[in-house]
């Protein structure tokens, strides 16, 4: 029972964005970035290194990866803000919650569905980039494996951003929720840099109010910044500078806390209809 409805709602989350043509727009955007990237490097090569033969594969891919991963951060916030909010706006939430389905089941399936959209888009974009940049003629392709481990790592902070977006969307209008999600995630990332490597002991070393706020963000929210750093390290084939298992434990705890707050908020809403 539970698995079946969970799967249905995950599927429904993807369908919802598909019907809205969001995905088509995103795909066009990717093509545009690919094309700009390709043109830019070919231009440089023609102008500066005329006649020399070498591959620009890694440069092209690096630039593309940087653009796409920051774009994905934005996309996570954007889709996160709408994944629950659109149900409220279309007046569907009331109908969904009147079905034999728990609220937590509803929330998690929406978040997972949104996360799958972002990750699916991410993977497709990168595969496309390989096809376009990596073609060497005669059926040969350049390939960069670290990219995929890096991708898996970056899926973790994206889930956190989606969840923050969903949470803020139940308090603020869409535009404000989006802005607040982006700002908040940036502050959390920043706090992760300040308190890098520290876990719950961050709270004991507060000397000023500003530092206190950062310590609070670092302690009680998923380490978006840390996982992004880890992902970049994997991409560059560097040693990991953070303790991954401890980071995962911290993520598990703080993510559960976020889910709990989201659940409480949904529970306390009296109207599942948009007020404007």
């Amino acid at each position: 029972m539970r698995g079946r409805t969970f799967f249905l709602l995950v599927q429904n989350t993807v369908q919802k964005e598909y019907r809205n043509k969001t995905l088509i727009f995103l795909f066009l955007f990717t093509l545009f970035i690919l094309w700009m990237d390709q043109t830019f490097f070919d231009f440089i090569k023609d102008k500066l290194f005329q006649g020399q033969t070498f591959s620009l594969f890694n440069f092209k891919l690096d630039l593309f990866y940087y653009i796409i991963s920051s774009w994905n951060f934005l996309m996570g916030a954007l889709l996160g803000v709408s994944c629950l909010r659109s149900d409220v706006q279309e007046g569907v939430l009331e109908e969904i919650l009147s079905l034999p389905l728990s609220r937590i089941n509803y929330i998690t399936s929406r978040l997972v569905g949104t996360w799958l959209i972002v990750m699916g888009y991410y993977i497709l974009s990168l595969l496309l980039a390989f096809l376009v940049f990596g073609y060497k003629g005669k059926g040969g392709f350049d390939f960069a494996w670290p990219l995929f481990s890096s991708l898996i790592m970056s899926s973790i902070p994206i889930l956190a951003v989606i969840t923050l977006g969903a949470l803020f969307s139940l308090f603020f209008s869409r535009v404000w929720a989006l802005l607040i999600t982006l700002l908040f995630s940036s502050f959390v990332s920043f706090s992760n840099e300040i308190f890098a490597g520290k876990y719950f002991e961050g709270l004991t070393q507060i000397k000023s109010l500003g530092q206190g706020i950062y310590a609070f963000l670092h302690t009680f929210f998923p380490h978006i910044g840390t996982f992004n750093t880890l992902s970049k390290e994997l991409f560059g084939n560097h040693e990991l500078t953070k303790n991954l298992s401890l980071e995962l434990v911290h993520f598990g705890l703080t993510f559960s806390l976020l889910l709990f707050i989201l659940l409480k908020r949904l529970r306390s809403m009296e109207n599942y209809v948009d007020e404007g």
Partner: protein
Amino acid sequence: MEKSTDSTIIKATNLTKTFGGFKALSNFSLSLEKGSFFGLLGPNGAGKTTFVRCLLDLTVLDKGHILINGIPHHKPEARNHISYLPEKFSFYPNATVRETLQFFSVFKILNKKERTPEIEKAMEELSINDLARKKIKQLSKGQLQRVGLSQLILGKPKVLILDEPFGGLDPLLIKDLKDLLKKLNNEGTTIIINSHILSEVERLCDSLAIIDKGKLLALKKIQEIDQDLEDFFIQTINSNKEAHL
């Protein structure tokens, strides 16, 4: 707590719900027998919608408890056999009618193989087969209501809850709806209707309650009311007002 008998399907005890100091439900108790056709009547703002939203756990009660088929209402299983048509049915504007019904069918029909034939049957029942491929945003109000109704009856639920189902419908649809509800009730389905259109309720329901300002003012079998329903309604509401003067 009073024990509910096997024939009780809904048992609400001492429900109280306030919205910022305003009592939308006040010590409201009600119990319904299986197979009854029940009308909840009351003027605008009386608390009818609030009551059914509490049944479905869409609104959190301040006080009181509800058992549905013996299961506490806040458990998702309590809604296994309940189907709800809100005052304004809506679905994703870009979904087609069939997609809409497919969505609800997964929750309401356990056996996967039965879903497609049941959807066809429900569309047939409400004469919307021709609309199957239309998008929700392209439907007229009455057509949308028909989709809401076919969603409502998917999977033969034991209890149907309809909030103001007659509002804004043409006489043809009202007749179809009444015939459908009568048929389902004869087959044993319990039906709860919120309404202030007394004439429709009078002809359909076997029992009714009158609610105003969150209070239960009367609970009667239809044959116990020996005067005109409208007179009874107005008298009941007015005597409650006088009691408060």
